[in-house]
C-alpha cells in the first residue's frame, strides 16, 4: 500500500510569511508524528497525535508553530511569522496505534525561509 506522503516537497518563503505543510499518513494508522531535521542532524520531535487530539506537543519550539488533525487522518503543520531559523526538513511519520509500534516516515518537506 501507499506510504506516508507529504506536500509540498519543497517550500520557499520569505521571512514573516505563513506556511502550511501537509501530511497524509498510512491508511489505518491512528498515530501521527511531526519531526524537524536540520542539516547534518537527526530528526527532532515536534508533536504527536493519537486520533484527532494532540497527545504530546512538548517539542513545538514556540507558539508560532501549530498542528491540527481534524478528522484523525491528514495533518497540517502551520508556521506563522516564519523566521530564517525555521529552515529545515519537516518530516511526518505514522504508526498503527502509537505504542512501541514502528514509525514510518514520509519523504519530508524542505522549507527554506529567505
Amino acid at each position, binding site marked *: 500500500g501507499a506510504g*506516508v506522503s507529504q506536500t509540498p516537497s519543497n517550500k520557499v518563503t520569505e521571512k514573516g510569511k505563513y506556511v502550511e505543510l501537509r501530511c497524509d499518513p498510512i491508511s489505518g494508522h491512528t*498515530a501521527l*508524528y511531526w*519531526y524537524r531535521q536540520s542539516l*547534518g*542532524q*537527526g*530528526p*527532532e*520531535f515536534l508533536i*504527536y497525535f*493519537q486520533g484527532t487530539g494532540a*497527545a*504530546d506537543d*512538548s*517539542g513545538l519550539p514556540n507558539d508560532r508553530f501549530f498542528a491540527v488533525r481534524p478528522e484523525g487522518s491528514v495533518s497540517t503543520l502551520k508556521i506563522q511569522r516564519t523566521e530564517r531559523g525555521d529552515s529545515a526538513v519537516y*518530516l511526518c*511519520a505514522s*504508526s498503527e496505534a*502509537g*505504542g*512501541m509500534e*514502528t*514509525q*514510518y*516516515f*514520509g*519523504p*519530508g518537506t524542505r522549507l527554506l525561509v529567505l
Partner: protein
Amino acid sequence: EDQVTQSPEALRLQEGESSSLNCSYTVSGLRGLFWYRQDPGKGPEFLFTLYSAGEEKEKERLKATLTKKESFLHITAPKPEDSATYLCAVSWGAQKLVFGQGTRLTINP
C-alpha cells in the same frame, strides 16, 4: 535529559570491509531502540527494532545488537549501495523518538 549519541560521525570503508556503528543512550527506562537508514533527500527508512538487552536482528548484510547501555549496527561485506546515513532512535516510554545525530557511511567500490 535523555540522550542518544552515535559514533563515528562519518565512516568511509572499502567494498567488502566489515565494520560496526555505535549508538549509546541514557540507560534507565529504555522501551525500544530503533535503527533507520536515510538516503540523501529522503525520509528515514525503518530497519530494526530492539527491545531488550541481548536481542539481535538481521537483514541482509546488516545485524543490530543491543546491550544494557548501547547498540551496534554491524555491516558485513558492505556494497556501495549500503552508503547512507544510519540513524539510531530511542523511546523511553513516551511515544516520541529521540534520535542520535547519525553516522554517515560511505562504501567505496
